[in-house]
């Protein structure tokens, strides 16, 4: 394909082209390094990064014993102003389908499921994770604004995926139903 027109100036042009390319490449690599640095720094400073916690569990037996039996689901207040929310995602509902969490508190969500892959997010917050059968998903976040939020499943889990919406209420401490060990708002 290369034709053979040579010229005295083609060598100089070649050198010029290579020079320009090298300059551009270095600049672009620099941009890449800068972007990487920025991403790394913000992840570190704001303690904001994707989930990093591998825990295995038997999906067939989560309802029999252990952390995710029905009686143990809901919000548990912990020491030092923290809370743990345990929930199960299954075809096609979340259990509890209505969660309550205290405002301004570090909340750790622990979720798993007995059947297929689900996803879960709370729009306008940074709560977003996948729930993969065989694994426990753990995400920690804090809600700074009280209110009622919606919590959809965002991964295709079957023909009823579009019906899989739950609710989460962020309440002030004065509105907290303190008398229960596991708090949820989907039962009478």
């Amino acid at each position, binding site marked *: *394909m*290369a*034709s053979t027109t040579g010229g005295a100036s*083609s060598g100089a*042009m*070649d050198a010029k*082209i*290579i020079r320009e*390319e090298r300059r*551009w*490449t270095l600049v*672009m*690599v620099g941009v*890449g390094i800068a*972007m*990487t640095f920025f*991403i*790394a720094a*913000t*992840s570190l400073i*704001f303690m*904001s*990064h*994707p*989930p*990093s*916690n*591998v*825990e*295995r569990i038997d*999906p*067939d037996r989560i309802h029999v014993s252990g952390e995710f039996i029905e009686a143990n689901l809901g919000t548990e207040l912990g020491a030092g102003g923290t809370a743990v929310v345990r929930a199960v995602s299954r*075809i096609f509902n979340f259990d509890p389908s209505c969660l309550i969490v205290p405002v301004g508190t570090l909340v750790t969500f622990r979720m798993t499921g007995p*059947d*297929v*892959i689900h*996803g879960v*997010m709370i*729009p*306008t917050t940074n709560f*977003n*994770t*996948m*729930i*993969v*059968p*065989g*694994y426990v998903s753990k995400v920690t976040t804090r809600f700074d604004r009280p209110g*009622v939020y*919606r919590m*959809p499943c*965002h991964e*295709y*889990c*079957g*023909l*009823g*995926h*579009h019906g899989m*919406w739950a609710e989460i209420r962020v309440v002030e401490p004065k509105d907290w139903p303190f008398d229960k060990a596991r708090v949820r708002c989907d039962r009478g």
Partner: protein
Amino acid sequence: MTAADKRLVLAHWWLSFALFVCALFLGFWQFWFRSPIPPGFGTPTQYYISVTAHGTIIAFAFTTLFAMGFGYAVTALTTGAALRWRTGAWQAFALACIGLALLLVAIVSGRATVLYTFYPPLVASFAFYLGLTLLVVGSWFWVAHTIASFYAWKGAHRGQTTPLGLFMVTATAMLWLWASIGAALELLFQLIPLSLGWTDRIDVGLARTLFSWTLHAIVYFWLLPAYIALYLIVPEEAGGRLYSDPMGRLAFVLFLVFGVPVGLHHLFMDPEHGTAFKFVQGVFTVFVSLPTLLTVFSICASLEIAGRLRGGRGSLGWVTTLPWGRPAMLATGLAAIMLGLGGLGGLINMSYALNSAVHNTAWITAHFHLIFAGTVVILYFAIAYHLWPTLTGRSLHSVRSVRVQLVTWCVGMLLLTLPWHVTGIMGQPRRMAFFDYTDAVLAPTAWLTTLSLLGGTLVLISGLHFLWNLSLARSSEMQQVDVRFARPAVSNAHVPSALNGFALWNWLTAAAMVAVYGWPIAQFFIYPSFGAAGISVGGPP
């Protein structure tokens, strides 16, 4: 190109475009169904069947067949010889067709509603997986054919620089081979045994990890044919020269090294991996922007040469002198707009800490429709228009009609995807058949979704217009001339041997893959999970 080769290319392309238009209808109906003004026919189950069909056709059939056809054409044109092993190529095409038929029948029968990402433990019928396997195996023939053609040329022309087009198309083929391995392993060792009942459980984490290997690399397989057009067709169409041959080669091999070991960024939110490998692959993802940035430089420089040759003056005056009326030029300009916007979205997607804001929202779907259906597909159109006279011996009936089609595609795409991005940020989740827009979190997305639907209507019309333009091409008296690819500005510039072959790049890719995917895959064997039981969609198999 010989007549027989042209027939081979056209067979792949006609099938590809026919499937494409079917997928457009499906996509349009899907968007309509989930808008605030639904059509009043269809059910959610049919929606999910449609999503599966649309995704499978676009992701695996339309793109692969187009790349194969284009690949055969470029190989023939750059080697200047008839394609070898043509019988095998036709057999591979037939195999791919059989696979497609199996696939589509399975989907339409409702026994394969698992979407094109087929996330287990959802299980489709065996026919679905078999169909997909046959389609991929058929494409692997093209991969072997292209690689063999490359090395045959090298063997026959010892010490010479390989033609740029041949090098690029071989890089594309190798990328597809690398990309397809992940899903192939998942299909062969996990999904097919599950669908046949040979196993009853599947390790979902392993399946997702293997699929993620394919899921990102495949988009660069879709991208590279468009980039071949940018390097080989556009500078020629503009009336200039390609700024640099080696830079183009470098961009393509960088897609191997940085485009394959990045799949884990699709699993940022997953519980089966930790931050170490998620971050490593995130950093590689940052650098996969490098070959695109190099391409932008090369193509802009090439266009500058063309602009100045046409009398452009000043630092930017050359832009206006370019022949924007020519289809390939116009498509490039429109693609640049969509690449800029889609690329910005891509920067957000790769940002490690921001992923929680966008993961599995409509933002993701909007992004890949803009960057692929927008930027890449408009260049596919340009390729088709450009090669059509050579392949069919007919000239396009009206360049004005072609221009209108390209512009409506771009406008439609922008109108479709830009509001769609916003609905994603507002929290609209992905893959839902329909929404109740009285719900507080969804109410603000209603008017945006309607805007997108308008865009989708334009897109559907434009897609049909594309087919119409091709069909109306009429025979002309003009002599049969093969299309000519761009020549570099410096004709016999030195191309280093590293860029005249693939050894270094494949070794680097292999090393990177072992480093970044080795443990993430091995962990499922060293720390096996309990697995999950398969669940058939659409009833017991």
